[in-house]
């Protein structure tokens, strides 16, 4: 096959890719992507994972290390099968917060720290450089294979110049389609579709070569299995430690590789695509790995010893004279290399421009922040970054001289980007993770990786001297790059994997535990970790096309039905529309936002309309504004709560007062009811007997008898009214006290004489101790005597002893005098003792003498007014009352 033909085919293929990307880009701009946004395209674009390393290198890997190459497919398969746990969250966050790269994700999560963004960018660039070099190398090698296989007079191209041309070509293609315009979401539909096409070419090419090997060279499946059994592939046996390490490493890489993040998260159009990809992508990987072993085995068998197994995919068809098939295989490998380089350089350029160039630019020219020329600055920064990334790749290729095996370089790159893992996982699942922890982890991991894996990859004596390899850094043997802390027997890769990630994770955890996240960090941490809680689902709004109905529904929810409707109707009238739904013009949206702001706050209103209109991004500043509004609302509600608590207290006090009033009202009703009874009872007798007397015709003795009853009942009425008035005066505290010195003995004498009118027929034996009564008390003598009369009369009334006796004993103590009245009757039942001082608390009517039951209540009121008390003394044999009065009552302040 002529080499020129190969170049022409290559160019045609590139032109074809150009056309695909161009057409799709045009359709995307017109909003007509249709099936191009399908899960199929998404899944195929994920095949960016399979680079030239996979396309060519897997066979070489199998030829050298047997089935170990499968670990590179197992890792991603596990991640995608378990997509629900991590990838879903990653994609949701990426879509919700318009994440533009993995550096952006880490930086936003830890409080929009640009330091972190820069660190991740540096790690990504450093780790990607050998990987890009690897792609260039594979293209150069494949060209070389064709050139050497076709000695048709054309000199085989110089590998160095081939690499330059390839790098320049890729840079041009990437710049043309990767930086055509600035999309808020950093999506590149044209390139993604071109990548999907290349994915198909890769798969078809590899399957075609595989099918040719199995059915063209060998005699079908049975024969090939027999050949595999017979082959002496070096490491058929599985090394569990290395396998587990490689599976883990490739699983981590599929998440953290910048290009994977780009197609998986940034270019994702629909979260649902992920569910499809969760089985379709592993299926793709399985197909890609299906014929690796047969090709390796047959290649080892057929091709001359010393042939580079990395090129078996090309050299086998060439050796068998299958020029067309070799061409297809070449295009497959070319696709693998170019797609990786394109996407990787776009992803890296985005990081470099967003986290390095733009912050620097803004720092140097703060005035530019407001200007429009930032767009062109960003685009130019990206273009330069893409060129720089490819230049770096070429530089690495040039320096390393394309010596190392493809797979080894790939794994070193994997391990480099894997350093992002602790910060990423911690950021997504641990709210306590902090910026300082992330920085510490990343720096630690990066340094350890560089020292144990990246720098040694240049070979002993290149960057690290032989002495460092043999004796360790500064002669410290525990710092030997491939035997840290004396771990000598480990596989170098596993050694680097173990130490870099372990130390990284430890530094990350320690840093996070020792520091406290700032406010933005806490906000972002909560938002990222709890992204599935209370968040809205993926939006379906296409750009600039918002349904007025949706706006109305939202407005009604916030403003209320009536107000929302009238707002929409008036806007529709102003637009000259008949219906009540206005067009979502910018003017109307502004008006609506202003209305919503009044209810939910400006930031929230803006975010809500942005969500529906689907064009503006929700930035950290927006979120902060929402948060501060929420804080105000919370403060306000705290105030409301405080006020409510106060109201509750007031209500409680009111309720208590009300209960008291109700109680008083009940007491008043009961009191009035009692008074009514006490008044009506004598009036009934008076009325009845006065009617009888009026009718005449009665014997004189009856007239006298009934006349006396009328007289007694009238007196009873008078006494009742007197008592009531007395009680009322005493209870109101309006009583006038006539204070003066009075002899206690005289007062008792007076009282005994007066009380004799009560049941005068009974003769009482009175026991007194006259010397003790020889006291002068400063008090209101009339009132105190009234109390004595009451108590003595009660004794005369109720003492039921056959020979009634009353003992009056006086005692003085501490400025007070106590006078006890104790009779020898039955006394008052225990359960009634607390009632006797209440109004109308007449216990029994058996011995009533016309009292209304107010006597003791009046006594109590009098004693309160006199600064003393009256109490019942239980357990004295008979009824016993104790009066306590102050010896010298001073006039109370009026």
């Amino acid at each position: 096959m002529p080499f020129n033909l190969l170049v022409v085919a290559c160019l045609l293929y590139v032109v074809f890719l150009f056309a695909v990307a161009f057409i799709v880009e045009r359709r995307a701009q017109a909003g007509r992507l249709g099936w191009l946004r399908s899960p199929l395209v998404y899944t195929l674009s994920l095949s960016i994972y399979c680079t030239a390393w996979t396309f060519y290198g897997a066979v070489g890997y199998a030829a050298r290390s047997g089935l170990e190459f499968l670990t590179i497919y197992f890792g991603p398969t596990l991640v995608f099968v378990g997509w629900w746990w991590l990838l879903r969250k990653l994609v949701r966050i990426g879509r919700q917060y318009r994440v533009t790269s993995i550096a952006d994700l880490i930086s936003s999560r830890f409080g929009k720290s640009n330091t972190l963004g820069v660190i991740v960018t540096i790690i990504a660039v450093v780790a990607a450089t050998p990987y890009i070099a690897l792609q260039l190398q594979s293209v150069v090698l494949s060209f070389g294979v064709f050139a050497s296989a076709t000695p048709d007079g054309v000199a085989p191209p110089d590998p160095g110049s081939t690499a330059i041309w390839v790098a320049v070509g890729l840079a041009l293609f990437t710049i043309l389609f990767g930086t055509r315009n600035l999309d808020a979401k950093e999506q590149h539909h044209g390139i993604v579709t071109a990548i999907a096409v290349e994915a198909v070419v890769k798969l078809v090419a590899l399957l075609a070569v595989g099918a040719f090997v199995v059915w063209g060279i060998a005699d079908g499946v049975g024969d090939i299995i027999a050949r595999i059994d017979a082959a002496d592939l070096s490491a058929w046996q599985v090394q569990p430690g290395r396998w587990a390490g490689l599976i883990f490493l490739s699983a981590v890489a599929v998440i953290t590789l910048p290009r994977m993040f780009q197609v998986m998260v940034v270019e994702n159009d629909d979260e649902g695509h992920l569910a499809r990809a969760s089985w379709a992508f592993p299926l793709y990987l399985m197909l890609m790995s299906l014929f690796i072993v047969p090709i390796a085995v047959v290649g080892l068998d057929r091709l001359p010893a010393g042939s580079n197994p990395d090129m078996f995919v090309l050299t086998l068809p060439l050796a068998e004279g299958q020029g067309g098939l070799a061409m297809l295989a070449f295009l497959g490998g070319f696709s693998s290399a170019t797609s990786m380089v394109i996407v990787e350089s776009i992803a890296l350029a985005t990081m470099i421009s967003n986290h390095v160039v733009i912050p620097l630019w803004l720092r140097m020219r703060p005035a530019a922040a407001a200007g429009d020329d930032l767009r062109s600055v960003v685009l130019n920064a990206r273009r330069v970054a893409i060129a720089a990334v490819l230049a770096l790749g070429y530089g690495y290729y040039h320096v390393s001289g394309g010596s190392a095996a493809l797979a080894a370089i790939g794994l070193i790159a994997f391990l480099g980007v894997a350093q992002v893992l602790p910060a990423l996982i911690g950021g997504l699942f641990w709210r306590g993770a902090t910026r300082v922890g992330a920085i510490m982890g990343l720096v630690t991991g990066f340094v350890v990786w560089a020292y144990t894996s990246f720098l040694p990859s240049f070979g002993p004596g290149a960057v690290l001297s032989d002495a460092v390899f043999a004796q360790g850094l500064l002669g410290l043997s525990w710092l030997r790059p491939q035997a840290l802390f004396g771990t000598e027997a480990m596989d170098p890769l596993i050694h680097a994997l173990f130490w870099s990630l372990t130390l990284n994770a430890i530094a990350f955890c320690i840093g996070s535990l020792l520091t406290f996240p700032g406010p933005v960090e806490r906000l972002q941490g909560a938002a990222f970790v709890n992204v599935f809680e209370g968040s809205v689902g993926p939006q379906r709004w296409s750009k600039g096309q918002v349904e007025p109905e949706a706006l109305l529904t939202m407005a009604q929810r916030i403003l209320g039905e009536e107000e929302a409707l009238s707002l929409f109707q008036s806007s529709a009238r102003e637009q000259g529309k008949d219906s009540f739904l206005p067009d979502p013009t910018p003017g109307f949206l502004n008006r609506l936002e202003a209305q919503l702001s009044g209810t939910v706050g400006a930031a929230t209103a803006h975010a809500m309309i942005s969500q529906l209109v689907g064009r503006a991004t929700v930035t950290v500043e927006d979120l902060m504004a929402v948060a501060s509004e929420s804080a105000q609302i919370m403060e306000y509600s705290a105030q409301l709560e405080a006020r409510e608590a106060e109201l509750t207290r007031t209500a409680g006090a009111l309720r208590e007062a009300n209960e008291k009033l109700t109680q008083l009202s009940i007491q008043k009703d009961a009191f009035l009811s009692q008074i009514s009874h006490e008044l009506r009872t004598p009036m009934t007798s008076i009325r009845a007997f006065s009617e009888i007397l009026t009718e005449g015709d009665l014997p004189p003795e009856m007239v006298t008898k009934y006349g006396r009853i009328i007289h007694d009942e009238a007196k009873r009425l008078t006494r009742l009214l007197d008592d009531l008035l007395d009680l009322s005066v005493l209870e109101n505290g309006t009583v006038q006290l006539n204070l003066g010195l009075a002899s206690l003995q005289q007062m008792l004498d007076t009282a005994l004489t007066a009380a004799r009118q009560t049941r005068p027929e009974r003769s009482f034996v009175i026991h007194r101790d006259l010397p003790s009564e020889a006291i002068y008390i400063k008090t209101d003598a009339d009132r105190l005597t009234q109390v004595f009369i009451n108590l003595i009369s009660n004794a005369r009334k109720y003492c039921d002893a056959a020979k009634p006796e009353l003992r009056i004993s006086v005692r003085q103590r501490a400025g007070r005098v106590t006078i006890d009245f104790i009779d020898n009757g039955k006394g008052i039942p225990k359960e009634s003792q607390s009632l006797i001082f209440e109004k109308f608390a007449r216990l029994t009517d058996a011995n009533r003498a016309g009292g209304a039951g107010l006597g003791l209540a009046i006594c109590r009121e009098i004693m309160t007014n006199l600064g003393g008390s009256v109490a019942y003394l239980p357990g004295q044999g008979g009824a016993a009352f104790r009066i306590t009065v102050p010896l010298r009552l001073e006039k109370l302040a009026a």
Partner: protein
Amino acid sequence: MPEARRGEPLSQHVLLIEDEPNIAEAIRFILSRDGWRVSHEADGSAALERVRKDRPDLVILDHMLPGMSGLDILSALRADPETVALPVMMLTARGRDREMAEQAGANRFMSKPFSNAEILAEVRSMMGR
């Protein structure tokens, strides 16, 4: 003193349950003069026993009684098949007891103070005279 003015062969029996002696005396006088046989009980707790023993044709029952209230006595009377239909007139000195008395099954209700003519007319109408 009781005289059968309207010629009944046997004067009808009124049991008066009232703790105020003067009121009891007045009612006894008024009814006796009209030809009724009147017996008197002052203690609420003895009233039911007294009804059972005396088998009166009519009971005049005071509301506020020592021992057992008039309402309780009335409820007990209405619960007993023998006295369920016994005509009962309740007396009360408090204004708001009418409803409770009627619910408890009183046939008539009188507030104190009453006129003699009034109580006489009520007793007569209760006994269908």
